[in-house]
């Protein structure tokens, strides 16, 4: 049974492959479909790296344009999305470099900190702790929490845990080794957990706006 499944798995073609083929054959409507499919994810990754909406909008446009121009170079050994992310990450880093007037920017910077590599906060969280906050309060907490991480951790966490790419795909998209992705993912997860614990722990959870008013 497992053999049959694995053979079927190997032969199964990702739906993007057919779209890419159509684009190569001159069907621009197929590219429109690909852009719609991934534009939100590409915007999110660009914003996680650049931390600037205007830059993220520019990166999103440039990445899709570059991918379109270079489509003949896409080998099909990897997923189209992984290849697209790699372009978007490079564009984002270039944008950061421009902001910093030419100072070299890489996905490896600011990673020396050992903060959060060992858990320190062992307080249990309230059940469904996110429900103690309204939508905008929660979004603000999550933004503040993830912005505190170096971008090399943020982007690994987003690709692996939010976009659900595999470790290998994340490594390919970021030009990192598999062990580097694994090590960054563990540290990103632990640091985020530690930071969120301040808001979500069972006993010292701050009162909600509603509780404050009553």
């Amino acid at each position, binding site marked *: 049974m497992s053999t049959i499944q694995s053979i079927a798995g190997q032969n199964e073609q990702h739906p993007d492959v057919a779209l890419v083929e159509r684009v190569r054959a*001159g069907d*621009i409507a197929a*590219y*429109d479909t690909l*852009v*719609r499919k991934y*534009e*939100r994810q590409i*915007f*999110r990754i660009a*914003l*996680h790296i650049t931390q600037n909406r205007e830059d*993220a*909008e520019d990166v*999103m*446009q440039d990445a*899709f*344009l570059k991918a*379109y*121009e270079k489509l003949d170079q896409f080998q099909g050994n990897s997923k189209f999305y992984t290849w697209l992310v790699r372009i978007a990450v490079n564009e984002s880093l270039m944008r950061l470099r421009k902001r910093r007037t030419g100072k070299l920017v890489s996905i490896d910077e600011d990673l020396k900190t050992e903060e959060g590599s*060992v*858990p320190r906060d*062992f*307080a*249990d*969280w309230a059940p469904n*702790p*996110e429900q103690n906050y309204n939508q905008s309060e*929660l*979004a603000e907490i*999550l*933004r503040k929490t*993830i912005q505190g991480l170096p971008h090399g951790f943020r982007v690994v*966490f987003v690709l692996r*845990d*939010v976009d659900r790419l595999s470790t290998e795909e994340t490594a390919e998209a970021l030009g990192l080794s598999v062990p580097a992705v*694994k090590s960054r*993912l*563990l540290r990103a*997860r*632990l640091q*985020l*957990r530690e930071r*969120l*614990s301040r808001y*979500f722990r069972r006993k010292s959870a701050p009162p909600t706006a509603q509780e404050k008013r009553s």
Partner: protein
Amino acid sequence: MTCTEFLAILDDVIDESIAAETRTEIETHLKKCGHCEVVLNTTRKTIEIFRCHEIYELPTEVSERLHTKIMDRCKKVR
């Protein structure tokens, strides 16, 4: 299993890529170590919360504007 050993395979536990024989060792450790149990549960919850909440919204009008720009620029290429 020690806490350090558990921490070293925390990601594999979360991603459910653990060999059956190690799974028993983990369960035994978690039964007697409240700290590791909290770390595991709250790390899982951390991932779930980030997965379920979009923190960088792309409003439809912005997305439409950018989409049109992208497609216009692509059409000029070929």
